[in-house]
């Protein structure tokens, strides 16, 4: 007897996407948190809302590609403004985040038949994960995961010091852009499951929980992957079992692990904070 026979197909699709995107977001998150790019991730996620609205305005039934493209545009705008103005990075990101959300909400409010979409994209919708999304997630995870693992050393060096990385022969500018591209694509494609508001949590919480327990980068990467996988799986199962929204369930599963890791770190491992 097939154990999956009693489970709804939409649930299986959501589960598949969650267990694939969870570890991928967590792996990216190790470098996102260390490079202080959590707000950057949040900004490109919110930028997606403008892309979704534009997609609907242009007549797309499925606004995935306009969403990804607009997020990339927001990421490019952040990098350009950072290089060509004296504005603080936080100011640039706050400007683009609020601008994208305002633009997206205005356009969606004008499209009377699409007003309901706002809630789905803000908080994620398990029902909106189609078969194509599963394949896209699997291919993306395989390609980006393989790329990240081949670039672990240059990325670690870049995170430690861009200057040192340059002197060691790393093409720092190219690697920075490639990392932003990969992060943007992964974050915007995870919005279906987790929603714009919660998607950054899957990038930030697993590495943060892993940081509480790990003694080196290797351990942090392995633990982040495991926590991302667990959060994705436990969240979707809990969502199905208790009929609660999937995105928040994944986030709460990750937060439960974070609290557990913090307690273990402070009470059992007696790990001091670094100065």
């Amino acid at each position, binding site marked *: 007897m097939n154990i999956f026979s009693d489970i709804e197909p939409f649930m299986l699709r959501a589960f598949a996407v969650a267990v694939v995107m969870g570890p991928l977001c967590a792996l990216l998150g190790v470098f996102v948190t260390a490079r202080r790019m959590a707000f950057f991730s949040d900004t490109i996620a919110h930028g997606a809302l403008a892309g979704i609205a534009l997609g609907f305005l242009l007549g797309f039934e499925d606004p995935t590609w306009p969403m990804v493209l607009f997020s990339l545009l927001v990421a490019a705008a952040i990098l350009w403004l950072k290089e060509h103005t004296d504005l603080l990075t936080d100011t640039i990101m706050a400007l683009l985040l609020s601008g994208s959300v305002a633009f997206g909400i205005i356009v969606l409010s004008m499209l009377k038949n699409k007003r309901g979409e706002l809630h789905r994209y803000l908080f994620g919708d398990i029902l909106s994960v189609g078969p194509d999304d599963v394949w896209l997630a699997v291919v993306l995870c395989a390609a980006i995961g393989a790329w990240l693992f081949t670039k672990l*050393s240059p990325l670690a060096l870049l995170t430690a010091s861009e200057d040192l990385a340059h002197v060691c022969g790393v093409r720092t500018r190219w690697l920075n852009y490639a990392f932003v591209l990969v992060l943007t694509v992964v974050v915007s494609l995870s919005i279906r499951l987790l929603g714009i508001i919660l998607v950054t949590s899957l990038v930030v919480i697993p590495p943060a929980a892993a*940081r509480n327990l790990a003694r080196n980068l290797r351990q942090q990467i392995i633990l982040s992957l495991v926590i991302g996988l667990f959060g994705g799986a436990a969240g979707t199962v809990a969502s199905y079992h208790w009929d609660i929204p999937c995105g928040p369930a994944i986030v709460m599963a990750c937060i439960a692990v974070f609290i557990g890791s913090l307690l273990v770190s402070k009470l059992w491992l007696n790990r001091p904070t670094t100065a």
Partner: protein
Amino acid sequence: MTHTTCSHSAADIAVSVRDLRVTLGGQQVLRGVNIHLHRGQLVALIGPNGSGKTTLLRAMVGLQKPDSGDVRLFGESNLKKALPRVGYVPQRLALDRSFILSVREFLALRLRETQHWFWHRHRDTDDRLRAAMAELGAESLLDRPIAALSGGQLQRVLIVFALLKQPDLQLLDEPTAGVDSPGEESFYDLIGEVHRRHKLTVVLVSHDLSMVYRHASWVYALNGVVCCEGTPEHVMSADSLKEAYGLNVTPYQHHGHSHGPGGGTVQ
């Protein structure tokens, strides 16, 4: 500009900088700098804040794009090709506390044979890392996160990192910036020892004139341009320093060592 002569052939030149001009934030920081560093020397770059010492060092490794001028390392104008022969110790690392890269992992990033550190721990290279750390008396730090190291410990690790590939040229940007006063002298002794043992060309940016006097074999005093160059005795003369700093410099005795007329600190 005042200078003393140094007898070396052109083939001995490790770093050659010609008419280097750099503008930062609308201000011309370097205004036609010419320097020629000879192999095997321990060269100090001194000068007041904003005199372009760090900018010059960064230009030497291609981190700072010049407006005009020419930088050559070992006769090579394509700096990328010369970089494998260069060790670089930046002024500081802006490490986030959440980045838990251990010293062992950090050092492994430097070597081709250990770049796949995530997948395996190679016994031979581990021995090599351990030996390199032991040389600088920092073996016990191998499993510590680099973000948790003190200023002095981090500088030692950065020097080990730079030395791992056995460079011909070692560049140090204010290597004692994060080191407390008592540790400073032994740190310069360590750099001098590394310079002798590895027969390196060392270029260091420093504010500590007494240490420069003790250890450097050649000194460049910068203030947008090279104000004077020569042996420490020559450059540390009150007149030369006044030309570089535009200020009076009071000689002082450093840790019981008697220095020449210029061995002191900028007042």
